[in-house]
């Protein structure tokens, strides 16, 4: 049989059932749209990062340190910064205005020099940035104005200095939108930093220098030459290329994960194609048998329908690509505030090409298995309609086709994930979820059949029985619709439980206002001021900054070098950070409610003078450090060595808003060390908390404070933003489910027309016919939603229990809404596809048979 005949037959055959075929391939449209949208967006984002790379840092090089720059670093800056040098000093402080209410913890940045060298800072009113250095001016995040009830022109108090607010920040280089979540930013001229008098002991200050080089591409060699030397001075050097690489990696990872969610939609569409093809081949059995009688070979018939699947896949994918391009055009404007740069919305041709190719491939590969049965339809079937020879030989191509299908899913996932392992795990995960969902749906159908009350009206029983009509696509519809609902529900449950945990930890009797950086001599007066205002005061918790000097007699520098070397061999970073970081520890002889002992024993409060001092470590940090109970550790407390022995390990519930510590020392060793204190209190509402914050900030400028409700809001905003992106991609899966359902409704149209004509002939009213139809789609929607929700609850529980380590709560009301919503979606689609069923007269239909 020649290719020309195959092509002509594929065309003629397809022409006759174009509408049905189109719905069949529309299953993959949503998936391709999602893929093209996210990949195109990621491509554009990365290209924009490349184009605007220098403005990410605003300079060619940056050198930063948590300490004041040492003379060696300063000397280096003088050498490197001859063409351009700017410095930014960042610290936390309380800010308030003379006329507004409350006070806010802010991040103050003192800017000296013409930073940024590259890129612009967008301000409102425009041009305010240039006005900043002309006097005691401040440019602030817009959110600060709202929080303090202030306006441009007001005077802002920071420490003992006052600044005129001259503008707000729109966007600035390298700003990823998350940074301001830690607290609104305030920029002031660097020469006024000292006037705040806040950089005394205990303040956490970030010193950063920005350098413009005469030749930009000299940055990397310079950075490589000085990196080790600077590390020894506790300073870190960064180049444009490195920040670009970091951002590129982060965006790439994000894009790939969102792309995987998009791939789910496409694969569900593939499932829809397979199911529809299965039914299609059954309906085409007569045609195929006749073709065989007329001399077509089994392979030729197979080729006709594979060609049809490919062409339909191409049409569905092209449509999907068009939708995807439209979606990605609106994406950047929707999330512009969270993006560090301008993103172009030009369609990305590689993304479109890959999306369409993937769509066609999925359509063909999923159609192959059901099309194999077209090879098995004998010519004899044309003569005897009910011909079924029984015990047909098993299709030998079944196994290779199944293998091709599995390999395709893994390959597509690996391509999207950018690494074969992730791809394989993802493919296995989808396979397992689909399998569990299928089993769940099967059990539910059986349960309904088994226990459905016989006393229920006939229409309900008939509607349910229709789920098993010959050539039904119940499984495919439940799977595709259910998987979309499952994704959305799991996402919702994870978000709900995370945020609920935060909300509950701020329960009615718990502290909700924290004061810290309190100097020892201020503890008494600050506590007195708080209780004088009528609020409870917790006992002050001391905080002592320190670093680790040695573990089991080995200096941390040596251990870190080892870990780094071993880490490189294994291709990842070792526990260097845990070794070198600054620890803010406390001392006490009792445990607190957020702690649980997991190894060793707590020390006695009234023990004799102890040397070495007992210390308790957070179990995770101990694991990072490779430390066990009984190990000796020497700490560097502001230059003084303190010898300790690890007495026990604790699990710490960090989600609780309490002062929690990686390291807790026994009493008697740190009392004389330089330290600051934390005090907690509780005030009933935001206004009164703001009032108290302001009073304390006015009297003790160095004492900072935050309102837990404000932190909760920031976390909720952050979580919601991340979840929004994933939810958006997951919606495409639900859309695929809807299309697969619409396709199934359309495919079974003829059958349902006949069934309802028959029912009408037997005396059913239109109302009863409608009820049968509604019962069928209510059942299918509830089935999909219920199966999805059971699975999502399991997944949500697993996430809460194993990943977030928080108790799992099931929100009943929202669950009911989701289940109901999915059922309503199914009913709407079913009803829309069934208008004709109700409208046509029985004779019209019966005459067609």
């Amino acid at each position: 049989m020649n290719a020309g005949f195959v092509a002509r037959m594929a065309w003629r055959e397809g022409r006759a059932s174009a509408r049905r075929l189109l719905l069949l391939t529309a299953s993959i449209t949503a998936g391709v749209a999602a893929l093209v949208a996210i990949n195109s967006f990621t491509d554009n984002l990365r290209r924009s990062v490349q184009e605007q790379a220098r403005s990410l840092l605003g300079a060619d090089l940056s050198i930063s340190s948590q300490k004041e720059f040492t003379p060696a670093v300063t000397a280096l800056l003088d050498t490197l910064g001859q063409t351009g040098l700017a410095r930014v000093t960042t610290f936390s402080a309380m800010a308030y205005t003379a006329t507004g209410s409350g006070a806010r913890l802010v991040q103050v940045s003192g800017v000296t020099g013409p930073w940024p060298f590259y890129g612009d800072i967008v301000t409102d009113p425009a041009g305010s940035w240039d006005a900043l250095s002309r006097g005691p001016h401040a440019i602030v995040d817009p959110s600060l104005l709202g929080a303090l009830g202030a306006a441009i022109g007001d005077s802002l108090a920071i420490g003992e200095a006052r600044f005129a607010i001259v503008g707000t920040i729109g966007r600035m280089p390298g700003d990823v939108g998350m940074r301001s979540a830690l607290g609104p930013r305030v920029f002031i001229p660097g020469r006024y930093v000292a006037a705040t008098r806040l950089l005394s002991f205990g303040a956490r200050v970030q010193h950063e220098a920005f350098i413009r080089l005469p030749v930009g591409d000299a940055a990397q060699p310079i950075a490589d030459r000085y990196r080790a030397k600077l590390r020894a001075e506790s300073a870190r050097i960064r180049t444009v290329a490195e920040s670009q690489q970091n951002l590129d990696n982060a965006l790439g990872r994000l894009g790939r994960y969102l792309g995987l969610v998009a791939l789910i939609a496409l694969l569900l569409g593939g499932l829809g194609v397979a199911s529809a093809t299965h039914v299609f081949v059954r309906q085409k059995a007569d045609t195929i048998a006749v073709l065989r009688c007329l001399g077509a070979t089994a392979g030729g018939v197979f080729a006709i329908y594979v060609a049809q699947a490919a062409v339909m896949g191409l049409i569905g994918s092209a449509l999907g690509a068009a939708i995807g391009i439209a979606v990605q055009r609106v994406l950047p404007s929707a999330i512009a505030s969270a993006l560090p740069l301008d993103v172009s919305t030009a369609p990305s041709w590689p993304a479109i090409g890959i999306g369409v190719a993937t769509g066609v491939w999925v359509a063909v590969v999923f159609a192959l298995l059901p099309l194999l049965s077209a090879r098995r339809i004998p010519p004899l079937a044309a003569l005897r309609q009910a011909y079924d020879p029984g015990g047909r030989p098993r299709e030998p191509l079944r196994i290779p086709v199944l293998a091709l299908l599995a390999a395709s899913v893994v390959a597509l996932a690996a391509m999207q994930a950018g690494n074969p392992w992730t791809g394989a795990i993802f493919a296995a995960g989808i396979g397992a979820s689909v399998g569990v969902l299928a089993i769940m749906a099967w059990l539910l159908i059986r349960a309904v059949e088994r226990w459905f009350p016989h006393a229920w009206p006939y229409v309900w029983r008939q509607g349910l029985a229709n789920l098993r009509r010959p050539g039904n696509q119940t499984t495919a519809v439940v799977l595709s619709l259910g998987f979309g609902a499952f994704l959305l529900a799991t996402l919702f449950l994870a978000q709900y439980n995370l945020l609920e945990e935060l909300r509950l930890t701020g329960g009615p009797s718990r502290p909700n206002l924290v004061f810290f950086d309190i100097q020892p001599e201020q503890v008494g007066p600050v506590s007195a001021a708080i209780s004088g205002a009528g609020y409870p005061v917790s006992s002050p918790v001391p905080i002592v900054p320190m670093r680790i000097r040695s573990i089991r007699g080995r200096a941390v520098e040596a251990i870190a070098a080892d870990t780094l070397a071993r880490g490189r061999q294994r291709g990842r970073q070792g526990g260097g950070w845990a070794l070198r970081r600054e620890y803010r520890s406390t001392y006490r002889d009792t445990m607190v409610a957020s702690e649980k002992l997991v190894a060793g024993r707590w020390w006695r409060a009234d023990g004799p003078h102890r040397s070495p001092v007992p210390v308790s470590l957070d179990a995770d940090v101990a694991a990072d450090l490779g430390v066990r109970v009984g190990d000796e550790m020497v700490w560097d407390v502001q230059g003084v060595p303190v010898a300790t022995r690890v007495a026990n390990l604790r699990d710490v519930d960090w989600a609780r808003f309490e002062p929690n510590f990686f390291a807790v020392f026994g009493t008697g060793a740190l009392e004389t060390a330089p330290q600051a204190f934390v005090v907690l209190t509780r005030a009933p509402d935001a206004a009164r908390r703001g009032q108290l914050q302001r009073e304390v900030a006015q009297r003790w400028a160095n004492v900072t404070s935050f309102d837990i409700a404000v932190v909760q809001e920031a976390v909720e905003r952050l979580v919601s933003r991340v979840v929004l992106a994933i939810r958006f991609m997951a919606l495409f899966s639900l859309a695929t489910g809807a299309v697969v359902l619409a396709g199934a409704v359309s495919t079974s149209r003829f059958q349902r027309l006949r069934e309802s004509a028959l029912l009408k002939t037997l005396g059913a009213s239109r109302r009863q016919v409608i009820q049968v139809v509604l019962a069928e789609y209510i059942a299918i929607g509830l089935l999909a939603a219920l199966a999805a929700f059971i699975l999502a609850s399991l997944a949500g529980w697993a996430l809460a229990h194993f990943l977030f380590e928080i108790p799992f709560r099931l929100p009943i009301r929202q669950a009911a809404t989701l289940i109901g919503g999915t059922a309503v979606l199914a009913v709407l689609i079913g009803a829309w596809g069934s208008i004709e069923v109700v409208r046509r007269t029985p004779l019209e239909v019966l005459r067609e048979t």
Partner: protein
Amino acid sequence: MLHCESLTKTYGSGGRELTVVKNISFSLEAGGFLAIVGPSGSGKTTLLGLLAGLDRPTSGSVTLDGEVLERLSEDARARLRGEKVGFVFQSFQLIPTLTALENVQVPLELRGVPARERATGLLARVGLAGREHHYPAQLSGGEQQRVALARAFSNRPRVLFADEPTGNLDARTGATVVDLMGELNRDLGTTLVLVTHDPDLAGRARRTIRLADGEIVADSAA
């Protein structure tokens, strides 16, 4: 019992109109047995459908057991069918998702009447006792048609319409089905209207109307 007056049915609109039934009038008494015969495309099935109220005629009227069908809404006609009319089709038209027993129950259940005992009895009467819980796919053609017959009689119809009831059956099975119809006609006094190609079957009717090209060309009593 059944009366039609100047019955005409035209399909299609605009340029391509096709008149399938042309100006047909006749009456049939209660308990009568009428066969409608004629070549393919002569309008037999359409006439049967109009008589049973499955569609509206383009012009003319049908009176069934005293009810003028054109005056009834579609739902009212459906109700009338449920109460007074039975159907048997060439291709059986059983609901594939229901068992034999459930199929027989449908007409009564649509009216909310409990029907299990009657359906079981009817299945026994057509010789299918013990096959109540089989699905249509598990029954032979003759058995399926007998289930359809039991279903047609489940609501004690005043009129039974049958469209080529033996068309898909071999001669012996066909004969059994026709015998059954005859018995039920006699025992219950049901009026029978039958469309057929089969001269043997037509010969059993007490009256035969022959159609050609949508018109009555002969009307003879046996």
